[in-house]
């Protein structure tokens, strides 16, 4: 059983990987954080961003211990599906969100398919 790591009490961050418009909304809400070393907790993914860069960012976010939740847009998640499938730690929680340009498609969500599978299977 995976032992949940200790969650720090002074607040952890949310990380966002999505397209520009989606991120802007979250930044407006105040999710964004740029630390002293100019490290951001979000990555703007556009058509020019390579899957490799997304992968690197995702791995960095999962390895950082001050991030509790990673929000990733479905479109972006589709590009690095295998890594998301491989990620099975409870913290940080990886959450797929719809992006602005394409409406939410529940069948694409790897977690939801798993949930539905279990729910339907049982």
């Amino acid at each position: 059983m995976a032992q949940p790591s200790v969650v720090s009490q002074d607040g952890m961050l949310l990380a966002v990987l999505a397209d520009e418009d989606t991120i802007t909304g979250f930044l407006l809400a105040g999710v964004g954080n740029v630390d002293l070393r100019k490290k951001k907790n979000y990555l703007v993914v556009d058509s020019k961003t390579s899957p490799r860069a997304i992968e690197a960012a995702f791995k960095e976010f999962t390895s950082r211990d001050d991030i509790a939740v990673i929000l990733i847009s479905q479109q972006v998640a589709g590009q690095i599906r295998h890594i998301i499938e491989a990620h099975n730690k409870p913290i940080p929680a990886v959450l797929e969100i719809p992006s602005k340009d394409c409406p939410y498609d529940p069948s694409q969500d790897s977690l939801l398919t798993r949930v539905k599978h279990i729910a339907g299977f049982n």
Partner: protein
Amino acid sequence: MSTQNRLPVVPTVTVLTMMKARLVGATKGHALLKKKADALTMRFRQLLKEIIDAKENLGSTMKGSFFAYTEAQYAAGDNIKHTIMDNVDTAVVKVRGDLDNVAGVKIPKFESFVLPGETKMDLTGLGRGGQQLQSCRKAYLSAVELLVQLANLQTAFLTLDEALKVTNRRVNALENVVKPKLENTISYIKAELDELEREEFFRLKKVQKNKQKRTAADMAQAAQIAEAAAANGGDLQLPPFPGPGVQPPASSSLLYNKEDDLLF
């Protein structure tokens, strides 16, 4: 068969007692684990429903947030996103962590909170569109709240899933491996002991037979002597001996023999 699915033990009565105690323990543990698994499954089921609900809900909430952003963009102009991007400093929306306990499984629990105080974003869109920006901000804050809730459910789901798997594995192991093994061992020991007992019985019988034979021989001898004596004197009366195939009298049964090394 019994040689594979049993513990390698010496079939003695002490071991049998031990095995029996272990079986009782295993049964109890199985019941407890079963209970835990049921509790977890119940919670898990509930969770599944909540996750599905929340995920479907997420679509509409996010849609609302995106639309609020569109409204803001409509009112404040396209450039507003660069302003927002450039004004990012430290996060004001953070996640507080906590641990929740479900049937002994520790589940991390998140809760989003907004740091109090003025933000730099407050004056964004002062010239135009500020109101829409604020309403967009609120929409996104509620979206973040929902997302964190969902993250909660998801983490709980993953942890519980893991815990449930482990518990179920244990239950199944107890039920299908440990308990049969113990039972097999017990029945093996019992069988062995029975075997031993039967051997003993046979041996005893043999001994008794020999004893009786000898007694009969002795008696015959004595009778001869007595006959000889009766013939000589006729004072000794003995019952007639039934012969060699006749059972010994009931009083001579093994059951009435109290022997120390026999258990029953």
